[in-house]
């Protein structure tokens, strides 16, 4: 006999509100239905009432974890409408901020995943490391969450002492390599909780248009930093980790390896940081009528902004945001079909969902 278990919208196993109605038989989940919208703020519509400066501050608040990525994508799209091109130093700083944000996001996720596995000492280790990443972000931007780094035509703050930031990154890389990566890749606790759990097949990942680490953990080798490079990514050497299994272990491995790749990119960007301006200072600009679109590889996958403007208007005519969790979250239904009920919190967490991004 089947029975229904609701999880959420407010539940200890969920970091943010969403609802999962699961149909179970015994301990096995047969099907599930997802409900979102508990955080719906109408930000896209609100953007139409903001000018080109205010809209950056607004869109930075779509997400509390990848806030920098939202302004990077928005500013890239608005640069397409104004004809401004950020100078090379600004492009490098954008790469540095994006990779630090990826590090912070992946380590935060690793901590939450560890907690859900019942591995609480690992949770504490990950959050200690995350604090160190946050310290680097704060050293650069002066802020810990909304960094206010991006502007149309460049960035707001320079990295005046890349050598000191490089030292912090090297220390981080050492600790990641010594603690997080070996434990997640070799520990029996991690393997026993994650191997073969919450499988998303390659066929399903392709069919559902899944993006980011979840796609790469199902054998889909897509990464916009490689396929459609933006900022200074074309000048960086890095690998795109791909795992074929599609289970929680594969997602864990992809993110663990991406942490090391981010450190690799950071070392290159900090050591090759070109001299010069950080923004197109003093250059007057005006918006032309039209739509510009920009895409960026956020920690959770592809973010896309379409921005429409009418010449002479103070505000955008339309701002549309496609966030990665919006693309990935429907896959939870397929991941938990056939899973044990006790594994569902870990499975839904394994996509590193951001409901704030999803609801916008």
């Amino acid at each position, binding site marked *: 006999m089947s029975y229904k278990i609701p999880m959420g919208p407010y539940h200890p196993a969920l970091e943010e509100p969403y609802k999962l109605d699961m149909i179970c038989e015994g301990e096995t989940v047969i099907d599930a*239905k997802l*409900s*979102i*919208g508990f955080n*719906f703020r*109408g930000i*896209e*519509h*609100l953007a139409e*009432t903001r*000018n080109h400066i205010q809209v950056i501050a607004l869109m930075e608040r779509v997400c509390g974890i990848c806030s920098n990525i939202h302004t990077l994508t928005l500013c890239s*799209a608005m640069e*397409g*409408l104004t004809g401004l091109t950020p100078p090379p130093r600004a492009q490098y700083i954008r790469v540095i901020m994006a990779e630090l944000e990826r590090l912070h996001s992946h380590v935060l996720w690793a901590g939450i995943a560890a907690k859900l596995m019942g591995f609480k000492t690992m949770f504490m280790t990950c959050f200690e490391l995350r604090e160190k990443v946050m310290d680097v972000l704060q050293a650069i931007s002066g802020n810990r969450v909304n960094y206010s780094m991006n502007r149309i035509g460049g960035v707001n703050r320079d990295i005046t002492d890349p050598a000191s930031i490089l030292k912090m990154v090297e220390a981080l890389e050492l600790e990641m390599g010594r603690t997080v990566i070996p434990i997640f890749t070799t520990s029996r606790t991690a393997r026993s909780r994650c191997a073969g759990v919450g499988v998303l097949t390659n066929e399903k990942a*392709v*069919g*559902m*248009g899944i993006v980011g680490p979840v796609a790469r953990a199902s054998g889909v080798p*897509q990464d*916009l930093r*490689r*396929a*459609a490079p933006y900022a200074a990514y074309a000048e960086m050497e890095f690998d795109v980790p791909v795992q074929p299994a599609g289970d929680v272990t594969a997602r864990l491995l992809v993110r663990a390896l991406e942490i090391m790749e981010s450190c690799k990119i950071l070392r290159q960007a900090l050591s090759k940081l070109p001299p010069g301006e950080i923004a197109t200072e003093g250059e007057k600009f005006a918006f032309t009528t*039209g*739509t*510009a*679109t*920009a*895409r960026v590889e956020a920690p959770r996958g*592809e973010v*896309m902004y*379409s921005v*429409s403007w009418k010449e002479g208007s*103070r*505000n955008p*005519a*339309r701002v*549309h945001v*496609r966030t990665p969790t*919006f*693309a990935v*979250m*429907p896959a939870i239904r397929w991941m938990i079909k056939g899973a044990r009920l006790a594994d569902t919190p870990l499975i839904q967490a394994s996509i590193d969902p951001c409901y704030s991004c999803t*609801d916008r």
Partner: protein
Amino acid sequence: MISLENIPAQLGTTEPWIEKGGVHWLTLGAMNVRQLATAMNGLHARFITITAYQLPKEEGFRLEYHWDLDGQLLGFPFVLQGKSIESIFDLCEAVDWIEREIHEEYSLDFTGREYEPLLLRQGDTTGVNLRDAVAAGSAVAASDAVAASQEKK
């Protein structure tokens, strides 16, 4: 990188790609959105999203469908005369949530599919992003007042 050159002919149009604002745009002639989705499946393109625009006055809506083909962003605009368009959900599973979101935000109907509420809760009405509907709300009226005062300055 996959060449886009031969794709217009496969889609039955003689129009060229126009690269603008980071997107390769193609205006389709007689091809409808379902035929487009089938063709994109054949090319193994990845569906990204649909962007809905409410056109000024009573001109209706424009929907822009986006796919990724080997890192290239493709865009196909469709202007709706009425308030409905055929759903491609049965051809492209990735479209599910965005069709539901646009239905709720703009009251557009994607025909040939069933909906379950996505963002809205019981008692809410669709069309939350429609300009005329929202203009009646006090929150946006307040924002308009702020914008008007800025215009005066």
